[in-house]
């Protein structure tokens, strides 16, 4: 929810916004203000048509950083269901980079495979996500994390910051990719978040 000063309608000024904790969906639909005791409250309605749980990803080399992700409906197994009812999955990472060739998945068995995906809405993909996921499945991946490269990167959408208020140090516009360890050879331009399935 955004609040504007419209005293000069031709020049609206953004005065403030509501925010969400990490992992929250952020489905602001409508609001109504409420004044009480000299304080103005905002009653915000988060209309959400499906309750697929969001995911926070962390790694052994990025400490307390938590990267927001969304699960994919088509994943054969979803966190919080069936064998993953605990909602928790841990594994060693395998960086498949652009993931367009079978050789990228050598050694991926029983690992969490990281794959870069170019958002096809904005640019031509080097290969399709379906092909990438099939490569990972055939290689025996434990789970797949798709790093969406494009303007719709959730790490940008979930601003002001994916991390908690107390631990936040990243400024808007600073990609978490700068914190993604070089040793993983993962080249995400927009962070190790986005889409995952297991």
């Amino acid at each position: 929810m955004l609040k504007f000063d419209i005293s000069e309608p031709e020049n609206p000024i953004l005065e403030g916004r509501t925010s969400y904790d990490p992992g929250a969906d952020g489905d602001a639909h409508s609001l109504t203000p409420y004044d009480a005791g000299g304080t103005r409250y905002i009653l915000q309605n988060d209309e959400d048509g499906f309750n697929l749980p969001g995911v926070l990803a962390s790694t052994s080399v990025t400490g307390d950083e938590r990267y927001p992700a969304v699960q994919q409906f088509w994943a054969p197994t979803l966190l919080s269901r069936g064998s993953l009812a605990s909602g928790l999955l841990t594994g060693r990472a395998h960086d498949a980079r652009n993931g367009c060739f079978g050789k990228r998945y050598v050694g991926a068995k029983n690992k969490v495979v990281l794959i870069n995906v170019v958002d096809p809405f904005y640019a031509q993909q080097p290969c399709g996500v379906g092909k990438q996921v099939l490569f990972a499945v055939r290689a025996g991946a434990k789970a797949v994390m798709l790093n969406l490269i494009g303007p719709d990167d959730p790490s940008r959408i979930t601003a002001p910051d994916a991390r908690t208020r107390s631990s936040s140090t990243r400024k808007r516009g600073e990609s978490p990719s700068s914190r993604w360890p070089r040793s993983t050879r993962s080249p995400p331009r927009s962070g190790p978040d986005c889409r995952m399935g297991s």
Partner: protein
Amino acid sequence: MKVTLKAQPPSFGFLRIFDEATAEDINEDGTPEYEQVGHFSDLAHVRGEFKAPPGFWTIHNTEVLDERAYASWSGTASWRST
């Protein structure tokens, strides 16, 4: 490197209450963020249940009159997947 994926509590949309007096520019982008000070999500199937029964179990809109808030809430099986 080890990766941990942790699912967050499943939920449909619910009522969040923010206090404008808490405005603070947390991320230093020039726009103050309001802090959530309350919420209501206690209706059936709204939180903590994945999957919920077919339908939408989400808030839609709220209006205020004096010291009462009236919220429209989708609590019925308004659609079913096949």
